């Protein structure tokens, strides 16, 4: 039994048996429409991103994102930890650019503490060094997974091979490949280990020779340009309206880079170029990422040259973490000298250590926003303090979260295969999107 009637929402079909054929297959004048649920577990959605696509044949007529599959409540959790412990949480948000999360958080906390000017030169240089190496590794993943999603598997092996070298450096410097929690309010957790500078220079040399592989494989590759040129188009007006930043915005020709426009961590004293393209498409964003890797290596070299011996944590003992980290026989921990001092010679130092580590320091009440240029665009920590030893509220303006809003504008009217290229060119990291 089937009927068809016209209601306010259009033609309504009521089918109660196996008699679908008696209903007109498709309403007149309308093609067959299919709604496809792509993801959240799908190898080419760049993580647990769910895309809800309405298709007419192979053309996407409507594209919507479903997110939240990686929501871990990091912002809520921060409210129950000390300001220093917060770093351990924020580093896990955008897991491909941990040092950016940490820096943004620490810059905001330092603003509230009023110690922005007192951060030692060496700590700031180490931050820049790590951030720029991190930008390279993050862009390499963007190129690698972007290539894989479009079928260029060799690009993936190249990207991950080079990234591994950088992660080895992170392991040498911080003890961990990812989720480093190395940048702390007031400075960094530990000084560079002996031999780190030599290791970085050696890595730079290796990277410079190997980084030619991806461009030589893809830049003039007709399949690659065919898959990415004119795909995922979003012009300047669209970017501004949707608040899009990072390589997507720079692919419209606007040289907007917070490192130049609103410098932090002394970026105004480094020499580098803001890379732009004017194609507004996925190919332009791909080229920008390639060139930005080069610029980041330039900054790393300059940072290495200006490293001078000195403290890596603010002098104020009310804020500075009392101990320096060192590698012991059982892994990384407080240095033996420090333990000898607090356990053997100074009761006051032990009390101080205990108070600072268990209670943490107070941060004056107020609000601060510290935006920085992450590999994906503007990453900013909005931090509210009530004057206590724990954050009252921390919110992260994550570029991946914001930029995913562009999926509809980039892929509606395009082919379904181009959705994959468009999402890959946005380079969203779901850990940052959902936090």
């Amino acid at each position, binding site marked *: 039994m089937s009927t068809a009637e016209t209601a306010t929402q259009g033609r309504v079909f009521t089918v109660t048996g196996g008699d679908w054929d008696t209903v007109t297959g498709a309403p007149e004048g309308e093609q067959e429409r299919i709604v496809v649920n792509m993801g959240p577990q799908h190898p080419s959605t760049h993580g647990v991103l769910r895309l809800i696509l309405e298709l007419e044949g192979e053309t996407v007529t409507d594209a919507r994102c479903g997110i*939240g599959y990686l929501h871990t409540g990091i912002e809520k959790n921060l409210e*129950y930890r000390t300001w220093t412990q917060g770093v351990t949480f924020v580093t896990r948000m955008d897991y491909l650019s941990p040092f950016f999360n940490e820096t943004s958080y620490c810059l905001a906390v330092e603003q509230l503490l*009023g110690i922005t000017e007192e951060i030692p030169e060496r700590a700031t240089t180490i931050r820049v060094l790590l951030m720029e190496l991190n930008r390279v590794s993050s862009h390499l993943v963007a190129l690698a997974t972007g290539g894989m999603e479009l079928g260029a598997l060799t690009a993936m092996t190249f990207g991950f091979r080079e990234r591994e070298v950088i992660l080895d450096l992170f392991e040498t410097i911080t003890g961990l490949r990812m989720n480093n929690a190395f940048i702390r309010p007031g400075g960094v957790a530990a000084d560079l280990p002996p031999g780190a500078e030599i290791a970085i220079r050696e890595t730079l040399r290796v990277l410079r020779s190997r980084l030619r592989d991806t461009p030589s494989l893809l830049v003039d590759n007709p399949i690659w340009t065919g898959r990415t040129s004119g795909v995922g188009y979003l012009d300047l007006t669209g970017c501004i*309206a949707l608040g899009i930043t990072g390589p997507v915005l720079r692919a419209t020709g606007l040289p907007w880079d917070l490192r130049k426009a609103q410098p932090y961590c002394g970026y105004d004293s480094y020499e580098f170029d803001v890379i732009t393209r004017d194609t507004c498409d996925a190919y332009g964003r791909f080229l920008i990422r390639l060139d930005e890797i080069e610029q980041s290596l330039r900054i790393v070299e300059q940072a290495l040259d200006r490293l001078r011996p000195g403290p890596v944590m603010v002098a104020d003992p009310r804020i500075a973490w009392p101990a320096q980290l060192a590698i012991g026989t059982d892994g990384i921990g407080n240095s033996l000298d420090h333990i000898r001092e607090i356990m053997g010679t100074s009761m006051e130092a032990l009390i101080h250590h205990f108070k600072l580590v268990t209670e943490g320091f107070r941060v004056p009440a107020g609000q601060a926003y510290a935006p920085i240029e992450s590999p994906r665009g503007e990453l*900013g920590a909005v931090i509210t303090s*009530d*004057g*206590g030893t724990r954050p009252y509220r921390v919110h992260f303006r994550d570029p991946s979260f914001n930029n995913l*809003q562009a999926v509809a504008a980039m892929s509606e009217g395009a082919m379904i295969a181009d959705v994959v290229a468009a999402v890959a060119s946005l380079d969203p990291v779901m850990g940052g999107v959902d*936090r």
Partner: protein
Amino acid sequence: MTDLEHADRADLEAVGEPAVLAIGRGAFGVRDSGDTSGFGGLVRTLTAPPAATPPYGGWFDEACALIRERLDRLGAPGGVERVIVEHGALRLLVARQCLLEVAQLLRDHPRLRFEMCMSVSGVHWPADHGAELHALYHLLSVTHNRRIALEVTCPDADPHIPSIVPVYPGADWHERETYDFFGIIFDDHPHLTRIEMPDDWPGHPQRKDYPLGGIPVEYKGALIPAPDERRAYQ
């Protein structure tokens, strides 16, 4: 400048005493046993930041004057309830009925041109009676390379704030997230649904009255309570 000072004083009078944001009691989170520390009776009151006194410096004065001028013309002179200058950044406490006007002016006026809305987020101050929920907007001007923040409050009993999506389409997901986590209803948002939590989730997790959750964990024979149940220094 005299006009400006006068306007600011009028605003201050309208607001009166700075609002109480939070009240803290005790120091060590001890509630279930006798207070031997003497700190248990401690009461600390956190008040909202005071209004800045003009001149605010730089472009802040001009921006504030332009907004006040527009609001005066619209017959809403108290629309900017307070001007706060904190850590070198300008933040305006805007009455919710004036938010759309202010946002439109900030975006379109050639001397302001805050083209992008970078972020919308919420803060829950349960002790701030009549204005428990705060929404924070961070705007960016690429043209002038400036930033401004707006703060809008609404009572828990009437959690409505007009949506700025008509002015800043990019605020769409940010407002959905703020609704999801705080329960602030952004009126006239095109589709105000949950974005991070499942559609049928009860409650709004980032509010202060919403527990963090968690289970006690055994560690070396001792039972460690969930993070929000632990005794902690306050």
